[in-house]
């Protein structure tokens, strides 16, 4: 964009960085010193630069606002969790703890945090794995088979995405009870798979659709049956989609509360992080420090995993799925 500014004569064209497109990609690599360079031609294009600056400034302001809005609660929880007893609700208000205390964490771990972490981890890993194991073949079928009622069936599957599990929680409870799945992890996992599959199928089908059918043909000519085609040929190209689905479902599963609470009931050995946190709302008072500490511990694994993978998540989302023409 640096060279663009003087060259481009159409008045307002470059005012929008959006449109710089390819040029800005190139400019970006060498950028960093964008602003000074622009200023060097300020004489001629002062008006436009003022606009540049204004837009940049407002975008920066937006960034700051967004970061403050979105990060503050998380940091505040962290700060609350590190306080000694009594300091959280002492007066005057303190943003940061006067002294660091790990007593809330000790309490949380004594109360069964290891169990909750373990349960959440098992349920998430097995659950997400199962979602993928179920939805990949289904998405493949919807993408690759021509059969009567395919569109209709896909529509029906998607329709289930419109049904929130909260709505059917009462009969679900009966179903789980009948199947003997109440108070079991398997039951909860199966339930999650049943509920999260439609959206996963829909996402994955989008990825399958981006893979040319010729790849399937080539594989068949090379002697693959459909299963082998999926395994040897298609699985790798849809891997970004699988990653997106995995991350999506991990977030959903890890943080799910209502179903876990309903299915697992009072079986505290099976409780997950969400339930664990909730348990610190006590008989006479809420143990806010413990809630904060449990929240931090509960979020941490997901935050770490997510910070590591968010790049792939975003990339995967960009890569396929929704038709953007």
């Amino acid at each position: 964009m640096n060279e663009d500014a003087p060259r481009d004569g159409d008045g307002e064209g470059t005012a929008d960085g959006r449109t710089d497109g390819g040029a800005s990609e190139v400019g970006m690599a060498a950028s960093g010193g964008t602003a000074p360079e622009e200023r060097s031609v300020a004489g001629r294009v002062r008006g436009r630069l003022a606009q540049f600056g204004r837009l940049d400034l407002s975008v920066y302001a937006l960034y700051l606002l967004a970061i403050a809005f979105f990060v503050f609660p998380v940091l505040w929880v962290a700060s609350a969790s590190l306080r000694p007893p009594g300091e959280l609700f002492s007066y005057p208000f303190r943003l940061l703890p006067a002294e660091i205390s790990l007593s809330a964490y000790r309490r949380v771990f004594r109360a069964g945090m290891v169990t909750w972490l373990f349960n959440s981890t098992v349920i998430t890993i097995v659950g997400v794995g199962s979602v993928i194991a179920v939805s990949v073949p289904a998405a493949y079928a919807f993408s690759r088979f021509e059969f009567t009622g395919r569109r209709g069936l896909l529509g029906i599957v998607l329709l289930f995405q419109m049904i929130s599990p909260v709505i059917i929680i009462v009969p679900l409870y009966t179903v789980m009870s009948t199947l003997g799945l109440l108070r079991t992890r398997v039951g909860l996992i199966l339930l999650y798979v049943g509920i999260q599959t439609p959206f996963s199928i829909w996402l994955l089908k989008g990825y399958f659709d981006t893979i040319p059918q010729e790849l399937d043909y080539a594989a068949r000519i090379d002697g693959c049956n459909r299963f082998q085609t999926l395994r040897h040929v298609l699985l790798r190209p849809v891997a970004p989609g699988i990653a997106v689905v995995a991350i999506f479902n991990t977030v959903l599963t890890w943080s799910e509360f209502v179903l876990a609470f309903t299915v697992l009931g009072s079986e505290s050995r099976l409780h997950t992080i969400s339930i664990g946190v909730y348990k610190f709302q006590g008989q006479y008072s809420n143990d806010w420090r413990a809630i904060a500490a449990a929240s931090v511990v509960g979020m941490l694994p997901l935050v770490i995993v997510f910070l590591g993978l968010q790049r792939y998540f975003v990339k995967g989302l960009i890569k396929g799925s929704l038709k953007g023409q």
Partner: protein
Amino acid sequence: MTDSDRSTDSHLEVRTLDKTYPGGLTAVEELSLSLASGELLVLVGPSGCGKSTTLRCIAGLEEPTDGDIRIGGRSVLGRRPEEREIAMVFQNYALYPHKTARQNIGFGLRMTTDLSEETIETRVEDVADTLGITELLDKKPGSLSGGQQQRVALGRAIVRDPSVFLLDEPLSNLDATLRGRMRTEIQQLQRDLDVTTIYVTHDQVEAMTIGDRIAVLRDGQLQQVDTPMSCYHEPANRFVASFIGEPSMNLLDCRLGPTETALTGTVDYPLDDRLAAAASEARERGVVLGFRPESPTLSTATDGDDAAAPSFTGQVDVVEPIGERSFVYVTLASGPQVTVATPGRTPVRQGASVDVRIPPAGVHLFDAATGQALVHPDRDDQPDVAGITTEELD
């Protein structure tokens, strides 16, 4: 290789093939083809004409609704692709993106044979050597150029030593220069391997240059199967006439005049006996007058009248110089626009009035209703300018 008798010991035979999709769409209808061993047949037609469907039926990727497909004299219906001894190359190459070129080429052997790793390795390397891609073997498709990918795709096809080779628009993803080179290479390879080949393309120029014979397909129906020259000079019908040849044949809708010695309509064209006899077959239905852009001559209106051929006045719309020749688009006074090929340094200018002289020796007549050819010019009389020299232009 125009000897039609080779079809008697045909290696690949398609008999009255029908393919109708569940939705009711008929992709291919009553299609019959017969290829001699080692022959290269080009299946050509506009997109959606059913050529790729035909190819996929032969490959076993789709089941025909009716008809038979025989390879080496035996029906292959119901057999799986890998059992048909065929290999296929796709328009977009369909290379497995996560496998190296080596793995791509060897994959089929690994899946279908019990060959040892070493044998597979040797065969892959032999093929790579043939195609000159040895140094690319450990790269993945993503880091290969279009031409290199094309070669890997070919390698994947020939490593299995197929008895029938199916190429589906193999060149259309390449740029013009590369296309010309690859075309020659494929031709060369096909001859060397002496493998029966069906080559699908929508590009008639490609079809003309590469095929031993070409089969022209339209709306799922076979129009003509013949050598490229025959298709060009003796198109079986109006569609083939307009499809083969660049620029297309001029086609003017006429009727047979009351005296049956002249056509009337968009142009009034006197007929000699030979033409009149042919035209009389379609006297009720109307006649289409066709001539290749190469056959007429142009003269400026002020030139003296040469009575050897009927002449029509018109005005030049556009002159397209392409080097040794130019194409002149002329709107005739009676209405229709015709294309005329002239020598490169034609003096005509846009807007000039010209006479277009159409010699009877270059005239094709078609039945206006059925489209069937009524008469073709004698081959010997044709001017020796082939339309196919424009091939590099597209």
